[in-house]
């Protein structure tokens, strides 16, 4: 995968760019879920620059790898990655949430190239992904289906139905990635519905599981380059992440599940991200 405008950017620089977009988008839109968007930036950047076989100039290419953002509420950074990859103009990001925009507050496929399916209600994506993976198997196609879930989403019973189903059908072309940022809507995951030991749960259902630092590019790429982890088994990546990652005062704070960066907080967040840019000597 190579996109001209990105060729000179390091992964770190691209991630910072995505974070800047995310802060600007959620600020302009007065939108929630900035923390959920920020926690999966490294995962998205590695997926779209290193792993996914996709073609931004031909988003409906039949042999493409499928990516489903089941945690559709985190779509700000997802839209930003798609735009920077060239699926649609970066200017569209300015319209996020706005009247007449294509970019709704949850990942939406209509008129947005690169968005595989619309999501927004939790607990839907993995079943659809499993259906796509099953169809690929039956048709002898080599594409893979990736599905990004949130941790809070795993409270939904409907998540565990495809977790049961996929190993039964040996869907080793299916990859679930859990953005395990440990905070959900009303509290810390361990205080709401504790998922631990999450990797063991998936493993006991028949998935091949790897755990990674979800902010470490090298680790993420190394793990996602080994798919499938075991032939005949679906793969699960438990990505340990930090909600609000990249903006110090948002990190690991429940507040930033819903709060939108405004006023001084917006300025401070941008200043912090721009500081990173200066460190990286790009302007």
């Amino acid at each position: 995968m190579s996109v001209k405008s990105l060729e000179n950017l390091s992964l770190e620089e691209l991630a910072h760019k995505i974070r800047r977009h995310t802060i600007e988008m959620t600020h302009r839109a007065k939108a929630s879920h900035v923390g959920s968007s920020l926690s999966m930036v490294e995962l998205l950047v590695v997926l779209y620059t290193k792993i996914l076989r996709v073609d931004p100039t031909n988003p409906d290419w039949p042999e493409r790898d499928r990516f489903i953002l089941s945690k559709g509420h985190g779509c700000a950074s997802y839209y930003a990655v798609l735009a920077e990859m060239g699926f649609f103009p970066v200017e569209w990001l300015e319209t996020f949430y706005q009247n007449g925009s294509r970019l709704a507050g949850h990942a939406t496929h209509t008129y947005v190239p690169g968005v595989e399916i619309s999501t927004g209600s939790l607990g839907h994506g993995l079943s659809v992904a499993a259906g796509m993976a099953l169809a690929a198997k039956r048709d002898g196609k080599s594409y893979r289906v990736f599905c990004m879930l949130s941790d809070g989403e795993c409270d939904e019973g409907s998540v565990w139905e495809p977790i049961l189903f996929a190993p039964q059908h040996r869907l080793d072309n299916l990859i679930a990635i859990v953005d395990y940022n440990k905070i959900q809507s009303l509290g810390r995951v361990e205080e709401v519905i504790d998922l631990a030991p999450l990797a063991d749960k998936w493993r006991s259902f028949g998935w091949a599981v790897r755990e990674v630092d979800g902010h470490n590019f090298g680790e993420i790429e190394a793990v996602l380059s080994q798919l499938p982890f075991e032939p005949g088994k679906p793969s699960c990546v438990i990505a340990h992440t930090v909600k609000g990652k990249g903006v110090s005062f948002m990190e690991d704070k429940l507040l930033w599940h819903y709060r939108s960066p405004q006023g001084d907080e917006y300025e401070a967040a941008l200043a912090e991200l721009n500081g990173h840019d200066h460190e990286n000597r790009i302007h």
Partner: protein
Amino acid sequence: MDTIMRTAFIDTLFELAKEDPRIVLVVGDLGFGVVTRFMEELPDQFVNAGVAEQNMTGLAAGMALSGKIVFTYSIANFPVLRPLEQIRNDICYHNANVRIVPVGGGMAYGSLGPSHHATEDIAVMRALPNMVVIAPGDPVEARLATKALIEHQGPAYLRLGRAGEPVVHSSTPDFEIGRAITVRQGSDITLISTGGLLHETVQAAELLAETGIQARVVSMHTVKPLDTEAVLAAARDTEGVFTVEEHSVIGGLGSAVAETLLEAGVYPRYFKRIGLNGEFSSLVGTQEYLRAQYGLDAPGIVATVKQILGIEPVSIIRARG
């Protein structure tokens, strides 16, 4: 062939699937003895999702978005109400080629109780964008609807009976999704029926004929999109329009017909929705028994028609019945 609606569906689907590898049947661990041949002879086009209707429905959407024509199959409310949000978001929003097929529409599973009575499904499905709603009136219509759904683009709901719906059509009628079939001519009133009550409705028309009332019978196998021309013609050509459905009168065929008439400004002299009154059944019994108790068998339909026409009190009809 075509003696049982459920069999008409599965046999037709099996024959079509043998020729068209895009067709996939996904079941929710139900259909013992019914889907067996499909499962054994076309294993690559069959999936048992287990007792997990939400996953069944999401899987179906994913497969449909990968080029398949997917039929989900289970009984009564299970493939409909349980995974309603998957139907709305994953299937309808993506205009995916999934056909949701419940067997046992209405009170076909009578004695099993209200958990198994699919009596609000048409209303719910009708409200969903992109969804086409079909309730065949007999096994012949079930076969024709199944065929028509292969070429149809987008989601559809195919509400089947279970067993025992008699064949109404002695020859193969012209079948088109969204186009009603006139089963019996009549100039006095029109009975518009959807689903498995078609036979009772035809019988009701025969009984009414004995008392000098000539009833047109229209099989409205497609509730959405509704054949508004047939509805308006009924109201213009005859004195009264009666809808007949094994479903709540709230939101089903009767509501669709009423909406059409009122918005068109065409007011029949008599209008009545014949169906269930929107309460859970408090009675236990077979479909036949429950239909009779709730006035949905031929004598019950006749009684309601006459009451609305002001001809005879219900009690007289009942006593004669």
